[in-house]
């Protein structure tokens, strides 16, 4: 049976509907994910550190998949806001990936249960230990934190469900008015999502080090989020194509995906550089605290790896036209950037949890000499790089990722991978990239 619209043959039903593959993926991904999470938790218990490393790794994995979902929503909203055509061929992927916020809210429960272990501001004594910290209590307190997270995830879930549901309904009845409504609401929804992408960075990353101050961190976090989906999109699309789906996605569409990826890799580097150079130049303790631990030892290696791997190499790799137009090459760069984006979240979150540990905080040095400080800190800040810790981090990524993938395939199952009755679909198929 062929699926066609406006006399354009889009392919067979098997190329557009995931009828057989989705349940299989759900089963395997879900199973592997749950098993990995259990294994990670058991390993975490074996460390006898009050599950600190497990929670730390779990938070990193959660943030990575949250970034994927929120940037997918950003992409869907941008599609409607810009009245774009080309992205129609991959819009359904964005809609499915973005519909994971309820799952993410459930997966956030372990973090809430272990808040006292990883968020130092949950300790009253800690917050009373300095005048600046005392002033932050109005914002950094447990009930308000839970309320904020509930609002953020609730709003994101509502927007993403609305956009997917209307899009699927439009497939059934073909009413253009539904698309017009999505287009109309895309403006304020886009604004709300951008705000949440920024503000949630304060809660998930900045608040791990309550003494740290930098004005651009929310934007840096949001940029990292945006990179995630644009790196994942060509990878997901190509995987689907290898399984025989979406044959109509061609090099013109990959070229556009590549351009978005390139733009966000550049923008990430721009914000990261702006943050670093101003903190380095200003040399104010409340700001340099963040980079202090990340400029020495193995963390320094990761910092340098981020500059090279998250910016320099993909910059050179993606700047030309041809890598963006060759799906295989673009998939390579997509995977590459995803790995480094995970590393970026790892680098932001994991040392932060240990920097606040009692041993580091009570180190009898001025804090100006990082080598002395680290020496007396009993190498606590290296903990996330211990092989066992790395294994827990890997298992958490597989665990959260497995459940995330399973749910995404549940959403994709039996639903068309193309918005078949979108009037801009013919334009999307005929798009030519410059």
């Amino acid at each position, binding site marked *: 049976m062929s699926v066609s619209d*406006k006399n354009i043959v889009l392919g067979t039903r098997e190329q557009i509907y995931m009828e057989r593959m989705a349940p299989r993926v759900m089963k395997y991904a879900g199973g592997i994910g749950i098993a990995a999470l259990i294994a990670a938790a058991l390993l975490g218990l074996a460390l006898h550190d009050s599950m600190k490393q497990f929670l730390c790794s779990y938070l990193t994995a959660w943030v990575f998949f949250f970034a994927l979902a929120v940037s997918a929503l950003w992409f869907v909203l941008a599609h409607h806001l*810009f*009245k774009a*055509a080309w992205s129609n061929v991959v819009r359904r992927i964005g809609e499915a990936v973005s519909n994971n916020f309820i799952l993410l809210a459930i997966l956030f429960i372990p973090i809430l249960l272990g808040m006292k272990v990883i968020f130092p501001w949950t300790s009253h004594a800690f917050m009373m230990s300095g*005048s*600046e*910290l*005392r*002033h*932050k209590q109005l*914002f950094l307190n447990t009930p308000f934190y839970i309320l904020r997270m509930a609002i953020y995830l609730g709003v994101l879930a509502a927007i993403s469900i609305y956009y997917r549901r209307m899009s699927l309904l439009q497939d059934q009845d073909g009413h*253009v008015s539904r*698309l*017009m409504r999505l*287009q*109309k609401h895309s*403006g304020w929804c886009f*604004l709300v999502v*951008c*705000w949440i992408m*920024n503000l949630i960075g*304060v809660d998930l990353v900045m608040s791990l080090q309550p003494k740290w*101050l*930098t*004005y*651009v*961190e*929310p*934007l840096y976090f949001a940029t990292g989020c945006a990179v995630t989906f644009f790196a994942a999109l060509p990878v997901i699309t190509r995987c689907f194509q290898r399984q025989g789906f979406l044959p109509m996605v061609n090099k013109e569409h990959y070229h556009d995906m590549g*351009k978005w990826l390139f*733009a966000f890799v*550049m923008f990430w580097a*721009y*914000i990261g550089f*702006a*943050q670093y*150079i*101003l*903190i380095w*130049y*200003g*040399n*104010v303790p*409340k*700001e340099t605290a963040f980079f202090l631990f990340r400029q020495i030892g193995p963390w320094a290696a990761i910092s340098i790896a981020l500059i090279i791997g998250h910016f320099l190499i993909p910059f050179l790799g993606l700047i030309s036209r041809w890598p963006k137009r060759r799906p295989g090459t673009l998939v390579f760069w997509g995977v590459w950037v995803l790995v480094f984006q995970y590393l970026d979240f790892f680098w932001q979150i994991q040392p932060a949890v240990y920097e606040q540990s009692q041993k580091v905080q009570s180190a009898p040095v001025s804090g100006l000499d990082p080598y002395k400080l680290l020496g007396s800190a009993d190498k606590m800040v290296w903990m996330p790089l211990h092989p066992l810790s790395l294994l827990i981090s890997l298992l958490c990524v597989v665990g959260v990722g497995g459940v995330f993938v399973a749910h995404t395939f549940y959403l994709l199952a039996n639903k068309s991978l193309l918005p078949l009755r*979108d*009037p*801009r679909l*013919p*334009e999307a198929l*005929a798009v030519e*990239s*410059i």
Partner: protein
Amino acid sequence: MTTIEIPQTRLETGYDNTAEDCINREPLITGEATYHAVTKIVCATPEARRAPKIWYVCFTISLMLLCVLFLTIAYQVFTGVGVWGNNSPNAWGFDIINFVFWVGIAHAGTMISAILLMFRQRWRTGINRFAEATTVFSVLCAGIYPAIHVGRPWFAYWLLPYPNIMGDWPNFYSPLLWDALAVGTYSTFSFLFWYFGMVPDLATLRDRAKTRTRHTLYGIFSLGWRGSARHWKIYDRGMIIMGGLACALVMAVSSTVSTDFAVSQLPGWHETIFPPYFTVGAIFSGFATVIALAIPARHLFGLKDLITERHMDNLGKLMLVLSSIVLYIYLIEFFMAYYSGNIYERFAYYNREFGPYWWMGWAMMFCNGVVPQALWFKKARITWWLSLPIALLALFGMWTERFSIIVTSIHRDFLPSSWHMYSPTIIDIGMFAGSFGLFFTLFLLFCRFLPMVAMSEVKSILPQSHTHLPEDCKDAQ
């Protein structure tokens, strides 16, 4: 013999092409959308024997203001920078406020030409030339300030890192040097970009010239353009490469300007968000300028079919986006000042909104963050008497923003005994007014003698330029 039927769009002038329809894309050009009609509309002003009367009135006023600029500069150079209102603790005042203000305006042209080019926004062809001209002229206005600020402008070249017999070099750690290099590069590049894009249109004017002088002058500046396939290939490739480079430059220039302040340790200045903050603010003020200039120009010079309501609608939407980002940054600044828990950090923002310059702080919030929110409504975007005041208020708001950042942060030093108000002198004010004279003199000359709209680029978006595309997709071009 096979004949190709060339589709043509014939619409009424003033046709509403702003519909938000999902099925059809509205045409970008109204009226008679043929190659000849585009040439006729754009060449009408440069080829006219006389400009509209209002042009002469505006040009006379601009020239008078330009004289004020020359006189104030001469007075300042012969007397010294003491003629300005700068004094401790207000070491910086109008000089750098106005520099940042003009550099900001200079961002729209390259933004429209480069970033919108990368986004395949074909509507930009109606306004890109225009916007690029504002870029070139406002960079010139900005460049005046650092040049005369050095006190002895004849030694301004000391800023450049050149080998000299004294073996001394400028301080490479100084953001003022970065600034000079960034703005210098940007001005050179934006001039080349503007000129390079204009070459085919200058050749059109040359070919249509009816006098020897015009033919010779346009001939010299069109660099022997013949419109051959080879020329077009080089041209297209050049524009894409320059567009790509310009994208990076747009981001770099205001970011570098922001480091003039942000590398210090002063609360209100030392913020890691400053580079994107300045860049967004700059593009915002640039778009406000383009709207403020496009509205009278399309009425005066009969460009309503090329700069249509859809252009104004899109410009309004972009301004709304930028205003929302600016508002986000203002609010994040307040939040972070609170979050810091630091009394000095908090005081800087308290003082901005409730100190002696409170009206500046609120004006920037109101003009940049609140008023442009009216652009959510289509009526405000396409009705000139609504969008023009919004754009002008935004420009005023962006000036107050620079004043708030610069003066409000330094006028109350750490020691209350060092608190002093800043008041500009008549020379400061005259120089600022004069810079508008320079801008408008150049801009009016551009409108009179050069093609205001990129003819060749507009022709490339007409339906007849895409006869090979399937019928469904032609509207989209």
